[in-house]
């Protein structure tokens, strides 16, 4: 058991070393609202920043975050060229409500589904909301857990930092 723990510690230390380099997206399939499948590494924004926001229809702060950003999304896009991907972790209980909710909310985001948490686990998301910011090479340069009013400003600052 002690050996095991040592090994884990070693692995953990190594891992901290390797996070010095930028992190890319894991190769995991997600579902599209059209019933298709897509590998998350295939998302594109012509070299502009990408925001991936994990959310669920049953998560109040998630919806608050995405609704707040929706009001200023056009401005953000004009200013920085950013694209927001709303990644729903709704399971099959609430998954069917995602498309109607998104449409009714008038969101212009790209929306994908991760009904059994495969991408969520691969990206180390334990609670929602959890937001990742990707640079032009689709490397994760910043992430943030949770949402309280005003957090969108910090996100915008981070986007502005890396926007061309």
């Amino acid at each position: 058991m002690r050996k095991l723990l040592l090994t884990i510690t070693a692995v953990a230390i190594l891992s901290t070393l390797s996070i010095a380099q930028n992190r890319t997206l894991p190769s995991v399939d997600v579902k599209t609202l059209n019933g298709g499948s897509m590998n998350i590494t295939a998302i594109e924004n012509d070299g502009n920043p990408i925001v991936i926001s994990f959310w669920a229809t049953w998560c109040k702060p998630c919806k608050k975050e995405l609704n707040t950003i929706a009001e200023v999304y056009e401005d953000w896009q004009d200013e920085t060229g950013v694209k927001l991907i709303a990644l729903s972790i709704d399971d099959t209980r609430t998954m069917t409500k995602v498309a109607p909710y998104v449409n009714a909310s008038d969101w212009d985001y790209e929306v994908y589904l991760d009904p059994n948490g495969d991408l969520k686990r691969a990206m180390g998301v334990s609670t929602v909301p959890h937001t990742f910011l990707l640079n032009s090479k689709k490397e994760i340069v910043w992430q943030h857990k949770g949402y309280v009013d005003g957090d969108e400003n910090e996100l915008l600052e981070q986007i502005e930092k890396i926007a061309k």
Partner: protein
Amino acid sequence: MIKKISLTLTIACLTIICFAQENSGEFHGDFDLNMQSYQEDKLIEAEPVDEIILNNAYLNINYTQGNFAAGLRYESYLNALLDFDDDYKGNGIPFRYATYTIDGLEVTAGNYYEQIGSGLIFRSYENKGLGIDNAMDGVRLKYIPVKGIYLKTFIGKNRTYFTYSDGIIRGADAEVNLNESLNFESKTKIIVGQGFVSRFQADNNPKFKLPQNIAAYSSRLNIINGGWNYSGEYAIKLNDPIGSLTAEGNNYANGNALMSSLAYSQRGFGIIAEMHRVDHMEFRSERAQEKQYIINYIPTLTKQHTYTLLALYPCATQSEGEFGTQVDVFYKIKKGSVLGGKYGTKISFNFSNIRSLEKGVKYDTNKNEIEEISSSFKNDYTDFTPKFFSKNGELFFNDINLEIYKKINKKMKATGILARQSYNKDVLEGKTPGTYGTVNSTIAIADVSYKIKEGHTVRVELQELLADGGDGSWSMGLVEYTISPHWFFAVQDMYNWGNHDVEKQLHYVNINCGFLKGANRIAIGYGKKRAGIFCVGGVCKEVPSANGFSLTISSSF
């Protein structure tokens, strides 16, 4: 022993790969810690624990390098929080895997999570909040022969706590996206899927014939045309008796489930109507085992509420038999209209109704009636199949709720909710019929947030639940102060002023504060938790009351 060896091998591989390809591989993961102290509180019947403090912790490590990925999860329960089954005990690495993808073929060995369709016949998943983790241990192949056709097969054993079930689970699934595979452009998109799962467990019963390979099939269809979206799934589970030696114990009937939903949406408007009918569909990884061994998932057909008093009496699927319907409407009143105001108004309406199937009678060896049943049952003396629509269905759950969200001005946002719920406490909490009956409640909620200055927001929640049955009426108030981007503080009080037992008219006060920075979140709290039913995703468990401090750390890298 074998487990230990394979573990060590996984770690060794991880380490070697890391050294060998230092520049191209990546490590990442996340860490969670939940610690709670338990003090005695006679009023709320909270029991102290001998350990004073209980603790759950998890560390996930994933390594990826091109098409290869491997990882493990270390879990530590010293000892497990009272919300968890105490079979979660000690430390271990119950989850480790390696996977690679080449030319459309993905091979996974070790642990994995998998789901077929909606999960009616198989779902292996984790939910830390509920202490559910029925991960598979085995191998899985996924293959995309041509664009639009997705095949997968897997074999393995399901995890329960720190052990693996006796039953061997084999599964296969094929999904065909007709548009993609036949390569035609059309406004109508059609996706069909067919899944299969089989469990092997040897027949050890000297008295009754038992099937050793239990099969379950499901077929699904999804049609999308513009704003319209239909999806349906039908599943059958073949004879799966529990292997009892008693005359009435074994049920050889086939189970089945049907779910169907139709949605329409356009900008600013969405509607979705759903139904499901479930009959004898509980599927476990071992025939003689209990709920902790369930390996399928029947989505609950009610709204997943987040406000405390709306979720006080939550619904859980009765996978042995129920008929449910649900309608959701989302509507955004346009900006600038009379009702919409400057920013628009969002309205969502939800209705759900869950009932039992038709009731029948179970007979003993002498053809005497012994029990009322409400799902398919078949043995040497009884053969009952409920009709598709039942006339005498008993109400399990009913919920009508309306939510209005409005941004009033630049500084103020408000949400108002009205709901009426009926909750069959006996059925949904597994009590003897007639113990509590049905709790009817009326709930009103107001949630207002106000921006004091840039980054500083105060939010107030007022909730009221009026009910005669159950614990009677409740009030709840919450004040939350958040300072973006780092801090939050919250105080809440739940007051059970309407409890019929005057001594139980208690306040449950909680204080929480937390600090967030990037990918780290730390929160501490102090307060009383009421005993109750706690549900996520329609799966519920009873949690005991508690009084004490809590510490939560969540971090990812």
